[in-house]
Structures are given as structure tokens and as C-alpha cells.
């Protein structure tokens, strides 16, 4: 099977060029063709010699793959199904909102983390995506070119596949790559601390942490990761980090009826996040089959938001999008295709 060029960084492309007996600058030309121009085959790289293209074609393929299916929600959200190199499938959501088009990318086939409220968690873990497979979810959708924001909030835990995630961020934000601003990219994690610190070191993208309850015992029952990396430790590390003026940290908080929507939770959240310049994104729970959790009513959600705002914590309620096609938060899954 041929190796894929798409997903390689500049250094790798230069090494490939040299190994094929081509000039080092061919690596930069390859990066231009891969990440700046809308072509899909090596033969279309018209500023490379015929010999260079033949050498490349012998060992490599371009490496992008089209989605095999697309579903469109009543609200305009789209859900794309992509095949992976391991003969598995992943899903990607594209959420339009006025002028903005946000792509929600997956980083793994399935997920190991087993959160009680998440559909992806219910399919277990089937494999890691490569950097190319992550970036391909942006490159190969119809809206490519109009994308304003990227969120790593699809299938999988990004910090459990950090090498590929960092490499994909490098491709998206480097001058030789897509040259996107890292301020348009948010990576969401449940808080695997060593990987989180490496991410903070090695990228400039925003960080979002899945919080969901400030109480240890309660979080442990919702999110098994709490046993290994308690949220208090995650927040302590974040508090000690200098995010600068431009970089943001936010906390995701899915509201569950009668479970984490009480005044006690507000008080504890205020205490937990004290001193951190952050935002809380409140998310309606989208029912997952077999999960004994429910979403509170709109009034409770809005009250929760208002009470946090009254305590000087910026809180917003995230709009539910794509629920009718199972593209909303926590609903992505390819279990039936395993």
C-alpha cells in the first residue's frame, strides 16, 4: 500500500524529496500543492517535472479521501461520514451559523474514555486517526474554503492521540500549510494532564475542558477519567498557566436534570474556577439511548447561566444543532459500521 503525502509536515516532505533524489525545495512545492491548492492527484502538480511526479507516484498517493455519505439537518448542520485507512468510519459535523461555518473534527475511531453521557463512548475504541485523516475532514468537505472555525470536539479524545493532533494543528496553522490562525481552533479534552500540558506548550490553539460537575464523586460516575485525573488537578494546572491575552480556556458543562444543575453546583463551580479567566459553555444534554440522564428545561438552563453570570463567570448556552441527524454534541457514533 502506498504511503500518503497528505498529512505530512514540511520536514517530512523535504525528507521525502531528498530520498527520491529531488531537490530539497521540492518539499516546499509539495506543501503548496497539498495545502494551498485544490488538487487531488500528484499528476496535477504542474510545477514538478514529469520525472519527479513519476518518482512520487511510485511510492506515494496524494492521500485525501472524499466523504462516503452526508446527512443534512433541518437546521442546515451537515454530518459527513469518512472512511479511514483502517477500514473504519468516522463522522464530522459542519455547523453553519450566519457567516460562520464551524467544522467539528474527530481524532479517533470511537473513544476509550467511556463517559456515561456520550454516544461515541458507547462504541469503544477502534483506532487512532493520522494527522492526514484529521485534516482531511476539513479539506474534503464541500464547505472547505468557507470554514471559519475548527473545533476538535468530534469522535475521540484528542489528548489520547496527541502526536497526530499536534501535527494536524501544525499543518493547519503553519505558513507552509493552511496558515490559519490558531485562534480559530479549539481543542476539547476531558483533561489528561500530561498531554494537556504538552498541548499548551506546543500549540497556540484554544483549550476547552469537559467539566460537567465540580464534585469529585459525581464526576467519577459520569466520567471514569476522574479517577486518574481529577478535575481539581486539571484546574490547578490551568490556573498556573499563562494563557496570554489572545488564547482562551473554556469549560464545557452539559446540564443534567436534577444532577448537576443545582445552586450547590453553582457555588462549587465559582470556587473551583476562581481566578481563572474563562468561559463556561452550557450544553443541553442530547438524550443517548440507554443512558439514565435527562436534560433540564429551558428555564432551569437559563437560570443556571444567569446565576453564573451574576457571580462574574461568563456563561453562555450553546445552541443545539443537528440533533435530528445525530450530529449534535455527544451524539457522533459509527458503532453500527464496526
Amino acid at each position, binding site marked *: 500500500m502506498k504511503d500518503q503525502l497528505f498529512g505530512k509536515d514540511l520536514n517530512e516532505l523535504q525528507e521525502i524529496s531528498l530520498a527520491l533524489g529531488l531537490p530539497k525545495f521540492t518539499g516546499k512545492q509539495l506543501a503548496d500543492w497539498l495545502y494551498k491548492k485544490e488538487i487531488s492527484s500528484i499528476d496535477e502538480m504542474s510545477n514538478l517535472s514529469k520525472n519527479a511526479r513519476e518518482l512520487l507516484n511510485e511510492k506515494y498517493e496524494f492521500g485525501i479521501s472524499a466523504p462516503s455519505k452526508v446527512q443534512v439537518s433541518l437546521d442546515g448542520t451537515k454530518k459527513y461520514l469518512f472512511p479511514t485507512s483502517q477500514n473504519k468510519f468516522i463522522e464530522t459535523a459542519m455547523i453553519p451559523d450566519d457567516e460562520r461555518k464551524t467544522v467539528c473534527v474527530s481524532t479517533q475511531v*470511537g*473513544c*476509550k*474514555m*467511556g463517559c*456515561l453521557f456520550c454516544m461515541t*463512548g*458507547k*462504541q*469503544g*475504541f477502534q483506532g487512532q486517526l493520522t494527522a492526514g485523516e484529521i485534516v482531511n475532514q476539513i479539506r474534503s468537505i464541500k464547505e472547505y474554503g468557507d470554514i471559519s472555525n475548527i473545533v476538535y470536539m468530534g469522535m475521540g*479524545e484528542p489528548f*489520547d492521540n496527541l502526536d497526530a493532533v499536534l501535527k494536524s*494543528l*501544525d499543518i493547519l*496553522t*503553519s*505558513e507552509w500549510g493552511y496558515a490559519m490562525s490558531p485562534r480559530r481552533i479549539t481543542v476539547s479534552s476531558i483533561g*489528561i*494532564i*500530561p*498531554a494537556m*500540558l*504538552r498541548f*499548551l*506548550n*506546543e*500549540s*497556540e490553539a484554544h483549550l476547552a475542558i469537559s467539566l460537567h460537575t465540580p464534585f*469529585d*464523586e459525581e464526576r*467519577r*460516575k459520569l466520567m*471514569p*477519567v*476522574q*479517577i*486518574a485525573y*481529577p478535575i481539581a488537578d486539571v484546574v490547578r*494546572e490551568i490556573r*498556573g*498557566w*499563562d494563557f496570554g491575552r489572545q488564547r482562551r480556556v473554556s469549560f464545557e458543562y452539559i446540564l443534567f436534570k436534577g444532577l448537576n444543575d443545582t445552586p450547590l453546583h453553582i457555588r462549587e463551580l465559582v470556587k473551583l474556577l476562581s481566578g481563572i479567566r474563562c468561559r463556561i459553555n452550557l450544553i443541553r444534554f442530547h438524550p443517548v439511548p*440507554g*443512558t*439514565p440522564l435527562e436534560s433540564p428545561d429551558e428555564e432551569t438552563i437559563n437560570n443556571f447561566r444567569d446565576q453564573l453570570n451574576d457571580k462574574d463567570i461568563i456563561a453562555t448556552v450553546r445552541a443545539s444543532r443537528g440533533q435530528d441527524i445525530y450530529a449534535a454534541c455527544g451524539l457522533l457514533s459509527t458503532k453500527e459500521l464496526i
Partner: protein
Amino acid sequence: MFKVKTQKMAKAEEYSRSDHELFAVKVIDNVEISPDVFLLSWKQDNVFIPGQVVKVAIDRSQPPRIYSVCGGNIDEKMSILFNIKEDGYLTPKLGAAIPGDEILISKPYGSFRGDHSPAYWIATGTGIAPFYSMFQSGLSDHKILIHGARHLNQFYFEEELEWAMGSNYIRCCSNESSCNVFPGRITNYLLETNHFPKDYKYYLCGKSLMVVDVRDLLIANGIPYENIFAEIYF
């Protein structure tokens, strides 16, 4: 292109370098109890609650990984059970450790804790470790241990567990068969026996798919999710 900021890098390195987090101990035993599965031990100097975990590293160049303590809380040794991941950075080195070598560990911590109340202990593979710790710590009364594995040689500590727990020790093997071993996965066993006492706690430890499948099955059979305690290997 990302710029590595030296000051911030120091902060990240601090996590794996900080003295209060990791300290050196000398390996006193490293036994291959099954092909590519090792029980590695050092002198126990820390009080712990059975079910808790420790962070383990071979040196300070890589972040530690987390393992359940696998042994009793009154033992002279503290142990971990691990299998070799060929592409891993840690387990091949841990597998090669010999008595006298130094490794780095943290103090035990974590909230996956056993107690004396009636419970099911459900594990796959090396997920048996926290339950073996609970067993060795005298917590096996009113417990039912269900261990799932692909192969018969993956029922670690089976002689000891079978002798002590008798019919409350159930093995489920998905790829091989033997007398006294249920042929199939843990979920098949639970469905077949169809016995889900509501006044028991359910502790699950192992790979994510087993944990989420068993958790869903328990919830579907009326077990409140508050009574389900899950630890996932990642």
C-alpha cells in the same frame, strides 16, 4: 509554525519532574506471570486503599502512566500488573527491569476504592489488578468476581482466586474453552444468568468497550448508575 516557549516548557516538565509527584524505588521482583504480562514489585512504604492507582515512569523524560496497585495493603511489596505494548515507550522498559533497577512512582491515589459492602467485581485482562488488591486486602466477602479474557492463560491468579472464592469466581473466555470457564464474553454471561441484585455495587475495570457495554447492560436491568464504579484503561 509553533514556537516552544522555554518558560512554559519548564512548567510542563515540572509536572513529571516535581519531587512530590514521583520518587524513585528499587524493583525487588519482576515476574512474567503469563506471556508478555508482568507483575513488577517494589518495597511498600505507602498506605493505600485497595483499588487505588500509582503513576509509574522509567525516567523523567516521558510522562508517567497510571496503573492500579495489584497486591494487598498489608503486603511488604507493592506491585503493578501490566502487559507489554510493543509500540509503547514504557512497558517494554518496565518488562526488562530487573531487581535493583530504579523506577519512578507516585504515592497511591484515586477514588476507585473497595470496601466491605456486597459487590460485583468485573474485569477484563489486566483489569483484574485492583480486584486482586481488594481480594488480597481481605475484602472478598460478599463479592462476586467475574474475569473476562480472550485466552485461558490470561486468568491471572486463577488458582488462588478459585481456591479462596470458589463459585463466586467466574471466568469468561471468548476465544478458548475449558471446564469451569464460561464460553463467551462477560456480557453474554450476565445476560445468560440474568441476575442483577439491586443492593450490590458494581465495580468495572478494563478496556472501554467492556466497561460501557456492561454499564449499559446493568442500567438496562435496573441498576442505578450511582452504584456503578468504572475504571477504564487508556
